[in-house]
Structure formats: C-alpha cells, structure tokens
C-alpha cells in the first residue's frame, strides 16, 4: 500500500523556493534514501511529510493530511530530526515514562532491552550523555514504537563511525521488517548504500532522479578504463568521466556489462558518484530528470 503520495508539493520561504513541485509515490516496505546537497529541500520535504510546516500542493501520508492531522499521524509515524533534539534536562527514565504515557504503540520493555545493551543508565540526564549515547537513546525510543513510517533526517550527524555503523545495523536487524517504511537523508551516502532499497536525488527543490537499488545496480556501471581504450570508452557515451590518480573512471548508463569488461575493471558505482555525475553533467549545474526516472 502507498505510504506517501505527493503531487505538486511546493513550499517557499519568502522568495526562496524550497520545494518546486515535488511528486512522490512511496510504497510500504521500502527504505528510501533522499540524497541532495545542502539547501536542496530535503529537510523541507520531510518537514512537510511530518506535518511540521504548511505547504501547497497535495500530500497524503498514510492516507492523512499531515498538516491538519499531525497528532493522529504521529501514532503511526516516528522521526528523528537529528541527534540534538532530545531535551537536555530530561532523565532517561523520564523519557521512557513520558513516551510510554502518551504513545499507544510504545513498548517500554523493548526500549529497555535495547538500552540494556548500552552503557546508558536510567538515572542519567540527556545533558550528561555523549552525542552517540543520545542517538542510541533516541533510537531506543523510536524502535520501541510500532510505527509504520520512520523518518530519519541526518540521524547520525556528528557521530563517530562506530556509532553510525551501530545505528544502521540496529535499524536493519531489530527494526526493519518489510511492513515498515523508512526514509533517510544523510550526507554519508556511502554508509547507507547497502541499506537502501530505493534512492532519490533532490536538487533545488525538485526530484531529479529516483529508482530502486536493484534498478540502480543493473543500470549503472563504473569502469576504470585502461589508458589505451579511452577512445573506445568515449564512443559508448559515458554519462560522466573523471580522473583518479591518473586513471580515467567512466560512468555508464544502460551499457552491456560484457561490452564494458573489455575496457577495464567494471564495478557498481557508489550513489555519491552517480549523484555527482548527474549534477556535474548538466551545464550550469542544472540537472534535468534523466530518462526513465521513476518519479
């Protein structure tokens, strides 16, 4: 079933257009990565989905209007905006008490079991915890909620690599179960590439690209071309070419793998490389929707 349906979603702050007619269709059971440069409109899109800001256009989240029905929607939707939003004065036990008291789908024992695996003590205040521990606490609260949609907006910003890895491991192993949907934005794209089922690029308030990771892996190939085959490689119309330590790396869209293998080492590109390729390949850094984009 459809979790998010948006048509012509627009939002501007003064003269700045943050969302410029976004269409979205997100099905249940996906883990969608929303990738974009700073100021592309990622957070604005998520805030609209979460009912935090008003918007123009049509938007339904789990069949509800998020702006007028936020408190109802939040029974089925969880979000972690970033690691710094838990109130600093609250104690861990108080946070558990509070969420247990107001959330009908919160299972306290689950959160406690998760916290038992950490060094967080119930009597600690959030201000006494390290940034990584606050993220663990927030994740413990969120994972104990039986939600249908989880929105993560830069959830691991400022965490060290151990905590970041743990965060996504817990999310995948203990939380995601194919009936839930997760939307995540992050700048550490390479760390979530194998977590995602879908990826979407957003730039200047527009969705410029979107596909499933299965499609991504079958469509896009990256070749480290042997120097003598450069001309042959260029004939196959790569969508991007870059130099790394004296070697040329070409990115191809829908070119047969066996054909490319003759040119050099073939591998699946990282999402970040494709993203950079798409933004750079357009004159004046103005990417258009590539053919066959799913959204």
């Amino acid at each position, binding site marked *: 079933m459809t979790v998010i349906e948006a048509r012509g979603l627009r939002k501007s702050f003064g003269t700045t257009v943050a969302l410029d007619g976004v269409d979205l269709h997100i099905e249940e059971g996906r883990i969608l990565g929303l990738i974009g440069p700073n100021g592309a409109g990622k957070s604005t899109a998520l805030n609209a989905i*979460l*009912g*935090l*800001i*008003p918007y123009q256009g049509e938007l339904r989240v789990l069949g509800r209007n998020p702006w007028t029905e*936020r*408190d*109802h*929607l*939040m*029974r089925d*939707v*969880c*979000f*972690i*905006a970033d690691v*710094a*939003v*838990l*109130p*600093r*004065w*609250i*104690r861990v*036990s*108080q946070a*558990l*008490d*509070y*969420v*247990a*008291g*107001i*959330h*009908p*789908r*919160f*299972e*306290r*024992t*689950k959160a*406690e*079991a998760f*916290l*038992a695996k950490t060094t967080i*003590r*119930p*009597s600690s205040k959030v201000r006494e915890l390290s940034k990584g521990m606050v993220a663990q606490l*927030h994740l413990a609260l969120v994972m104990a909620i*039986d939600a249908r949609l989880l929105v993560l907006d830069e959830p691991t910003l400022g965490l060290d690599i151990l905590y970041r890895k743990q965060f996504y491991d817990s999310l995948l192993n203990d939380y995601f179960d194919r009936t839930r949907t997760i939307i995540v934005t992050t700048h550490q794209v390479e760390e979530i590439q194998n977590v995602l089922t879908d990826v979407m690029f957003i730039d200047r308030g527009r969705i410029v690209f979107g596909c499933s990771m299965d499609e991504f892996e079958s469509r896009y190939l990256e070749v480290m071309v042997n120097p003598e085959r450069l001309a042959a490689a260029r004939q196959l119309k790569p969508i991007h070419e870059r130099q790394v330590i004296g070697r040329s790396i070409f990115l191809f869209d829908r070119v047969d793998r066996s054909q490319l293998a003759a040119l050099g080492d073939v591998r699946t590109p990282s999402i970040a490389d494709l993203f950079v390729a798409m933004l750079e390949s357009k004159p004046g850094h103005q990417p258009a929707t590539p053919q066959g984009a799913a959204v």
Partner: protein
Amino acid sequence: MSTPSNVPSDSFAPQPAPAATSPTHPLYWSLQREFWEHRSIYLAPLAAAALFLFGFMISLIHLPSRIRAAGIDPMQHDFIVQSENLAALLIMGTTLIVAVFYCLDALHSERRDRSILFWKSLPVSDLTTVLSKASIPIVILPFITFGVTIALWILMVLLSNAVLLASGTSAAPAPHFSFFQLSTGLFYHLMVVHGLFYAPFYGWLLLVSAWARRATFLWATLPLFAIGIVEKIAFNTSYFASMLGYRLGGGAEDNGSKATGMAVAFMPHFTSGQFIFNPSLWTGLAMTAIFLAAAIRLRRNREPI
C-alpha cells in the same frame, strides 16, 4: 505484572513483554513533563516557605517577652495574624514571579533547544501541549501556593503555641479570624485573582513566548508600556494603564480593604461569589482564550530558533 518504572534499580533488566497498545494520558504526562523541566514550580514556593519559617523561628525568641510587655492578647493576635499575612504574601509573590518566568520560557525554550522537534514527533496535539502549559500558572500554581501556605501557617501556629506553652505564657486564645476563615479567604483569592483575573496576563506571556525569537521579557513588557505612553500622548488619557492596574489589583473596586495592610486574601466579595457577575472577569477570560488560540497556532507554525 510489575512495571519497570516502579523498580528503583539503575539498570535495564529485561522484563516480560506487555500488551501491544496501552491507554494514554497525554494531558497528565504533559503536565508531568512541565514539573520535570521547571522544578521551580514547586521548589521556589517551598524555599520561600522554608526561608520564612527560619525568620519566624528567630522572631519567636522574643515572643514571650513581647506578650508579657504588652500585657494581654491583642499583641499576640496581631503578631501571629500579621505573620500569617506576610507568609501568604511572600509565597504568593514568589509563585507570581515563578509564573511570569515560567510562561515566558514555556514555549520559547523548546524552540531554542530544538527539542520541539522531539515533542512534535509524538502524538500530542499543540492544543494539549499549550493548554497543559497554560494550566500551570492558572490552575496548578494557585493550588501549590495554597497548599504550601496552609502548611506553613499550621507550622507557625504550632511553633508559636509550643513556645508560649514552654515559656509559661497563656495558651493561645481564639483569634479574630478563625483559621478556617483565613484559609477560605486565601483559597478564593488565589483561585479568583491569581487564577481567573491574572489568566489574560499568562495567556499574553505564553503568546509572546511562542512568538518571540529572543528577549521574551522585553517583548512581553515593552508593548504594554508603549500602548500606555502612546495613549497618554495622543489622547491624554490613561485608560489602558488603569485597566492593567485594575486587573493587577484582582478586579477589586477600591473599597479600602487594601489600605488596612491586610492581605487581599480576606476581601469578602470573593467568598460571596459576586465575582462571577464582574464583566471584566469574563472579558479577561475571553482575552485569555484568544491569546492561547494564537499561541497554539504559533506553536504549530513556528520552527526551532
């Protein structure tokens, strides 16, 4: 099945799993949250009471000699009743200050520390949140003031009687005001004046706290002065200032009760229930509703600072 919240251990032991959904009490927990965050709500009046009791105990040293010097009862009445008035005024003053700063902070600090994003990620409406915050100064603080004051009064009476008995002076005679009269007077004063008549002030402060990006105290106070000054210059009148003064005085017509130096707690027209027919009570409550509705809308729209 025991809930882990009742176990005062400091570790997360695995517990048997409960049912999937549980009943919720958003208003109760929203209030609880305010007590966690703003502990001055109860600590400040308790501290004021403790301070007063300390001073009162020192003053008791001289009580027997003062009573002997005065000869008979009236001095003692005055001493105890005046002390009780003073105690009530001190605690009321404390909770008023707490209420003002609580309101200015209530919808501002959650935006300043971005925790509003956490609160809004939970199924609690802006209406519930703002109403729970508004009920702290309008309902909760008057009750706390009442409870702390009564407890302090009882301690004062017990202590002074104990001192008088120990010194061999006459036992306390019946005072002019019975303890019950004083308590009901205080209760009505707190509920009617501090709760109902001051409600629009609290509504205004909450509105400013939801709106201002910084300097909430200035935004809350300076516009009021500005209106008063503009009115004075433009029309040479001071209706706005006298309206504020009237409201701050608890809607009391100047019937001389304030001049006695007695706490306003004992104004008889409250206990008789006439305040219900005071139109300014109702206009004030209407203003409160408007301010709170605006604060709810602002909380919905506003982003972290």
